[in-house]
């Protein structure tokens, strides 16, 4: 409620700050003119939306297809006499979960964008930010709505065979930690939408750090909806899991946003990409190590699991192996951008970086799809 209140406030008092906005925006259209003049004309003119959105479609298509395949692979067999969730819930829930993850990733990436672009050259960065800020608000809304829908679907999954009523949803949130985690995440997303709306109106006077912190905060409860292990190792595993989620979101979101919004402007790309490349290398290490620790530790601490062998014989182990393979696949793609394309980008030459980034982001989307299947996979071998 408070989030929404702050979100609607600038609209109510819209006329007063409107004047301030006029002055600030007066410079911006000029900036847009500069960008079109010096930027590579290709991106702006010929069918920019279709080709330009490739990374976004790759991310979504990779994620949804991976999660559907993994869900079909791990489909629960019928249990006589017990109502199991119907196909709408069985397949709808994982798809909702992965779309929720992607909306959050988009918000995180868009939040990091002002930090990556820097604040020194508003004439050049402001046109990009003017597209990014409303997008961030929309994705934050998508995040909140998807999180709440996921709660409804989780309730339907638990009460298989019945259409969830508001009372059942309330009971679910009351009883199950996943419901509370998602509710908190949705609240963070709404708070973000409110602050994002302020940023749409007032530009970078709204601190970028505030948006980053709220977006990352909203990510934190998401691992609560997956599984960790009850043991003395619980807390270290949870911290490792949080690092995994934060690292993956910053990496995927940052790359997707750069490919979508910055790649057309060679000059801006040359300034942004070296910094992001360092962040991405760090993220690759953090995500890889924490992912391995989580997967192996969760298996090792589950009773009845003999480790090296059960990697191949249990659903969970196989999904861990698929994720390791996808991470390995990311390495050459990332290396191509880092070592082949980056020197040319720094010389302001045209490159196929958007295509390579689209490929990398698609693989990341698949990893997200597998991650969602992993949260509900059965650990002991069948």
């Amino acid at each position, binding site marked *: 409620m408070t989030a*929404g209140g702050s*979100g*609607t406030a600038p*609209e109510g008092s*819209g006329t007063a700050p409107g004047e301030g*906005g006029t002055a600030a*925006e007066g410079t*911006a259209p000029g900036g847009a003119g500069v960008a079109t003049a010096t930027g590579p004309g290709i991106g702006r003119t010929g069918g920019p939306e279709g080709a330009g959105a490739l990374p976004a479609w790759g991310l979504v298509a990779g994620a949804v297809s991976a999660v559907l395949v993994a869900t079909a692979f791990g489909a629960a067999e019928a*249990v*006589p*006499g*017990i*109502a*199991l969730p119907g196909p709408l819930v069985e397949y709808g829930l994982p798809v909702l979960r992965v779309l929720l993850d992607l909306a959050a990733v988009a918000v995180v990436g868009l939040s990091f964008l002002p930090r990556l672009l820097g604040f020194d050259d508003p004439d050049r960065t402001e046109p990009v930010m*003017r597209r990014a800020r*409303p997008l961030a608000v929309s994705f934050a*809304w998508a995040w*909140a*709505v998807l999180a*709440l829908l996921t709660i409804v679907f989780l309730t339907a999954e*638990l*009460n*298989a*065979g*019945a259409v969830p009523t*508001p*009372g*059942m949803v*309330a*009971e679910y949130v009351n*009883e199950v*930690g*996943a419901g*509370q985690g998602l509710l908190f995440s949705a609240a963070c997303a*709404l708070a973000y939408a409110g602050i994002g*709306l302020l940023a*749409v109106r007032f530009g970078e006077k709204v601190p970028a*750090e505030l948006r980053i*912190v709220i977006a*990352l*905060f909203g990510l*934190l*409860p998401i*691992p*609560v909806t*997956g*599984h960790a292990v*009850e043991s003395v190792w*619980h*807390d270290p595993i*949870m*911290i490792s899991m*949080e690092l995994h989620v*934060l690292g993956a979101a910053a990496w995927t979101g940052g790359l997707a946003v750069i490919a979508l919004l910055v790649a057309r402007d060679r000059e801006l790309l040359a300034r942004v990409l070296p910094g992001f490349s360092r*962040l991405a290398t760090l993220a690759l290490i953090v995500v890889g190590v924490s992912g391995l620790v989580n997967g192996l530790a969760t298996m090792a601490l*589950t009773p*009845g699991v003999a480790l090296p062998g059960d990697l191949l014989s249990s659903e969970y182990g196989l999904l861990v192996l698929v994720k390791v393979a996808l991470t390995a696949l990311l390495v050459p793609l990332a290396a191509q951008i880092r070592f082949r394309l980056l020197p040319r980008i720094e010389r302001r030459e045209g490159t196929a970086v958007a295509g390579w980034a689209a490929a990398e982001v698609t693989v990341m989307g698949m990893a997200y799809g597998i991650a969602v299947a992993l*949260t*509900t996979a*059965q650990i002991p071998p069948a």
Partner: protein
Amino acid sequence: MLRLLTVVLLAGVALLGTVAPARAHNVLIGSDPEDGARLATAPEKITLTFDQAVRQGFAQITVTGPDGTRWEEGKTAVNGEKASVAVRPLGPAGEYVVGYRILSSDGHPVADTLKFTLTAPGPGTASQPATDPPPTAAPPSTPDLSAQAAEAAQNGGAGMAVVWIVGALVVLGGATVVALRRTRDREEAK
């Protein structure tokens, strides 16, 4: 940036203390009778033992006979790591399937089956199950009116909260759309 991440992480760790921490899927570690057991005398009760506590209120166990008849009696009881259900005297010899679905401590439902074989027929007859409603999580189709009223009173407040939240979201979402559109219009007007 690093300082920022440190702050977020520390805050996250603090937060984890308050949000109920995730725990694992429950794993079945034992059962009575055991999976695949061959029994000469019918069990009076099926007990499933998990590696950690089972959540109250959502557990279901069923026993299905060789001819598809259901043999469990009454509701599934949960006691710590154990979930159990009483069984009527079993009838024909053959393979019986025990199905279960419980809510793990991490909030995910876990369902599976195990089997046991009755080698000698028991005294039970299949005439009873018609009067024995299948225990599902869904409320019974003809609930006692007073029980329904009590449930509504218990859930009414919380259920209404859900309705209010949805209503508030619709209003806020509409306001956001209007705000974004007006900003865009003003920029285009320049």
